[in-house]
């Protein structure tokens, strides 16, 4: 079982079991991790599922590269960092066991 670690805007840590085939966004939303709003449900139309992938995990997850994701990231409320991703575009894989992402305080 893969576990994703979310550090929420208050600094609290949420360890959430995640199934391959889901996305980092869906795992967070379904278990109620605070701060990931994902209003459009993963349609790349809201930019409110923004997360910061921790530096040591950027290679595994990949930096944002898709043109549409990059354009939508530009609409994210919080400052962008090298690890910024729209979490609806990050599918969960086994290599991500223990992945740590930080949730920005401002999403929407």
């Amino acid at each position, binding site marked *: 079982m893969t576990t994703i670690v979310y550090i929420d805007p208050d600094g609290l840590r949420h360890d959430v079991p995640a199934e391959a085939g889901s996305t980092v966004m*869906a795992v967070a*939303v*379904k*278990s109620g991790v*605070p701060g990931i*709003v994902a*209003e459009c*449900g993963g349609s790349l*139309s809201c930019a409110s599922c923004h997360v910061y992938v921790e530096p040591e995990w950027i290679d595994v997850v990949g930096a944002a590269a898709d043109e549409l994701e990059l354009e939508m990231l530009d*609409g994210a409320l919080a400052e962008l960092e090298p690890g910024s991703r729209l979490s609806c575009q990050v599918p969960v894989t086994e290599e991500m066991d223990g992945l740590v992402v930080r949730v920005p305080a401002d999403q929407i």
Partner: protein
Amino acid sequence: MAVSLRELGHAGPITLVGAEAHAPYQRPPLSKAYLKREATSESLSLREETFWPKQQIELRLGVRVHEVDLGRGRARTALGGELAFDRLALTTGARVRRLTLPGAELDNVLYLRSLDDADHLAAALSAAERIVVVGGGFIGLEAAAAARSKGKQVTLVEALPRLIMRAVAPVVSEFYLQAHRRRGTRIMLSEAVTHLEGREGRVTGVQLASGAFLHADLVLVGIGIVPRTELAESAGLEVRDGIVVDRCARTSDPRVVAAGDCTVFPSPMAPHDMVRLESVQNAVDQAKVAAATLMDQPSEYAATPWFWSDQDDLKLQIAGLSNGFDDVVLRGEPLEERFTAVYFQGDRLLAADCVNRAADYVTIRRALSQGATVRRDGLDDLSVPLKSLVVMP
């Protein structure tokens, strides 16, 4: 609403009652990925099952409240049960508008609003060959695109002179007409349905007022939704094509708030206008406002409306509300299926419809949320970056 109440610190009991048998789920994929069977029903659920008891939010599923007694603080269910409350939130949504013509009760005349509808429609779609879609709004067009992607023959009929007439400018309507036709959907405008024909209880065709007859083994009707206001009316609340609420989501009774498709309220863009917004964004943002009101921490609804529609590879993102526009400026070329229509009322930026132009969408959405406008000089020139035209207040 329930989730926001807990986030705002409400510690007391919360009961979420719904007539549908399913735990809360997202509707937008029902006319998109789910209809194409590219998403599972599990992926639609808004929260995992354990979330609700962990948050101490009691779910009463498959329970229809059919009467509210504000005086006694009781909600009576269809089976005669009673739920006591101090404060009440009505998020009753809307029901589909139904055809009332002869033949409307035939089998395989289907609607699309709920998960059950979508399951029924997806099954019927796989067995059908000739689909007629009645209604050229977002639901009709999304479903037509889904059906066509499954190799079905699709004809869409719209009573008004253009597609999505209630929400977009003529140039955008025309774009969709051509784009769908290019992809093989037959579209007939200014066509009213007079009746449906059937054999052995199942639909076989659609008769149009112009005289044309369309053979069909499946008819999908997408002619709009009607807000569910019966409970509000029974409780004596003010209702006017929706449950009337103010900018803090309060109904005409201080104990009751309402949010989402069921409400009518002062437009965030033009407070003298009352609007009913049929969107996920409104449901979510208005519910947050309503929750804040229930927590005695009222804040006015100020969120910039936005909306999206995915039809094939045509991604539409709308920022703002274009009602009342007097000018539209096109950026990009509709024939290239990448363009933005920017709506103005005088000098005031109202909205933008962005087709496959997400960068423009985020720029306009941000500008609207900041009360900014855009300069018209250079707006129709793609070599001028849109961001450079934004004028802060």
